[in-house]
């Protein structure tokens, strides 16, 4: 058995004893609505993908409490180095569904200007939600570097670096945690152990007893927390954040949760996730668990979920419609942002692309003179 006891705050009926979450009623409701927004976004994205309006999405179902609980422990001056399954962190901090949908459609208003696949978000406001790349674990030492910059400047900001169980096998996990341990970086590493890395179960990912224990070798204190317990994740993250702000260095958090959907909209998890396991985790759904807590505080009654969820769906649908109606990026966006200034050879290639359009017709987008 692991030396790390699974921390929980909420019992299965929503009781929290005398736990003080530090959240006002309005903030608790914001957490709740953020989880429902993730769910609405997921459900909408799945429909959009199945109907061919977008090419790809990543389901978050089951992980919402980990995302929102962790995000709730941050200030907007902190930086999030997210994984691709962290929609709730952005939504909690006020990134609009519309800005996220612009990315899903890869349109002209997408921060990435349609250069990345869906779910590879990048936001600077209202919080640094750092541009996501597909290679796994590369962002871990980057987050440590950003945290080191905060420390050198004497800021009390923190980098929250989020990754899955699969990410712990990456080169970046080792180098990132090793550097952070040595440098005492103001970083919080959030390992979302959601059971599978695409189709690989955790027992094939590592022979160690879970992931929290891996912190020890780097001299980094670790916390094992119930990832479906929003208040416990918030508490664990807040503890790590407080350590970081106080100059006491990094913390590793393993949030034990479960990915209830596929890896992506292209994945069929029924081929490798046993039905019994899904049923077991369905019982631990973070949303009703948090609802029971809210109910115990007089903040929630039966029927509230449906009402709030339909509001979320309306918001997400409006965002999707807006994003779909937004023009595609213009052709010159292929050639811009490679460097701050467009070098001559890239400019020449852009001019060739525009010239071909003039001579041979539009291949689907763009037109006119090369403007860069």
């Amino acid at each position, binding site marked *: 058995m692991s030396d790390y006891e699974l921390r929980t705050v909420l019992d299965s009926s929503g009781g929290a004893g005398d736990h003080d979450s530090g959240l006002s009623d309005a903030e608790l409701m914001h957490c709740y609505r953020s989880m429902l927004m993730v769910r609405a976004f997921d459900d909408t994205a799945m429909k959009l993908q199945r109907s061919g309006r977008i090419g790809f999405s990543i389901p978050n179902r089951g992980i919402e409490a980990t995302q929102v609980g962790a995000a709730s422990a941050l200030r907007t001056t902190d930086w999030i180095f997210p994984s691709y399954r962290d929609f709730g962190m952005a939504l909690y901090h006020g990134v609009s569904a519309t800005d996220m949908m612009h990315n899903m459609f890869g349109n002209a208003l997408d921060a990435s200007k349609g250069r990345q696949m869906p779910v590879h978000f990048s936001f600077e406001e209202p919080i640094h939600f750092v541009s996501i790349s597909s290679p796994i674990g590369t962002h871990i030492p980057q987050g440590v570097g950003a945290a080191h910059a905060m420390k050198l400047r004497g800021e009390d900001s923190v980098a929250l670096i989020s990754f899955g169980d699969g990410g712990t096998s990456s080169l970046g996990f080792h180098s990132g945690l090793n550097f952070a341990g040595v440098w005492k970086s103001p970083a919080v590493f959030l390992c979302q152990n959601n059971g599978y890395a695409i189709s690989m179960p955790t027992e094939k990912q590592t022979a160690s007893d879970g992931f929290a224990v891996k912190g020890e070798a780097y001299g980094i204190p670790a916390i094992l927390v119930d990832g479906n317990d929003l208040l416990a994740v918030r508490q664990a993250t807040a503890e790590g954040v407080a350590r970081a702000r106080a100059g006491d260095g990094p913390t590793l958090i393993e949030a034990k949760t479960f990915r209830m959907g596929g890896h992506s909209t292209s994945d069929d998890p029924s081929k490798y996730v046993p039905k019994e396991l899904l049923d077991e985790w369905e019982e631990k759904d973070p949303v009703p668990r948090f609802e029971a807590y809210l109910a115990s505080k007089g903040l929630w009654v039966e029927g509230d979920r449906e009402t709030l969820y339909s509001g979320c769906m309306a918001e997400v649908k409006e965002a999707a419609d807006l994003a779909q109606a937004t023009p595609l990026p213009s052709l010159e966006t292929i050639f811009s*942002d490679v460097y701050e200034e467009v070098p001559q050879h890239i400019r020449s290639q852009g001019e060739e692309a525009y010239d071909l359009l003039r001579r041979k017709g539009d291949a689907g987008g763009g037109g006119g003179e090369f403007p860069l």
Partner: protein
Amino acid sequence: MAILTLLQAVNEGLKTAMRDDSNVLVFGEDVGPKGGVFLATEGLTSEFGEERCFDTPLSEDGIVGAAIGMAMNGLRPVAEIQFQDFIFPAFDQIVSEAAKLRYRSGGQYTAPMVIRTPYGGGIRGGLYHSQSGEAYFCHTPGLKVVTPSTPHDAKGLLIAAIQDPDPVLFLEPKALYRSVKGEVPEGSYTVDLSTTRTVREGDAVTVFCYGAMVPVCEKAAEQAEESGISVEVIDLRTLYPLDEQGVLAAAKKTGRVVTVHEAPRFCGYAAEISAIIAERAIEYMEAPVTRVTGFDTPFPNTLEHHYLPDHRRVLDAIERVHAF
């Protein structure tokens, strides 16, 4: 003006940039109190303190990854990779991350940083202390690749690279660290990262080269001159993005081109020079566009002097294209 070695000029460039901008940090393996295995960072920790010049764990991936995070959060990191041969654990960070960050975030996040690394042969370093990996990196949009061949350029290009808004791989020809001396201005100055340097003018044959091959080509050109062949030598110095107009103008001037590098030939940097000329200046060519390069083998140890292009091999190529 001070007469410095190329190594001292690198050191001067680092100190100058650190004095001018407190956001400039230097880090890597053994770069602190020891001053680096070649002493390029000697004296930095004592002048600027351990917060601005420090040793890191032995992890190229971590060094470059952390540099990217620092760069995106307002610092100007100058990371050292002890030998270019050891850079490959950081290949993902350089190619997938630093080079693509501006593009993939639409400019929200950028990585203004420099990765300095000694490259090339000439020190009996064998397979793993001798390689010239420029071609891997010149194939990477978003990255700049620079290599100086004189002390003046080493300092000026390095300061320009540190000030540049985009990530720069700064390849230092270790064979020239102590063998080349030259005048280096005091204080801060930059050498433009988008131009070639005409090492010597000539009108019969054009030789393109960079880094440690520049003095080799100069010597070959001097010997060719003695037998009546006038050779123009161009130091490419910023390999990517390349001053293609400068290359084309120099190629058209003589119609006879030799490109020289230490790296293996196949898909090597000279292949791109040859292709640019073939596509855009073929009508000016009087002889086959020719390459003098390392062999398509790993880099040997005992026999490295046979592997590395020397002035005889370059002279031989000059004579062949001249006689064609």
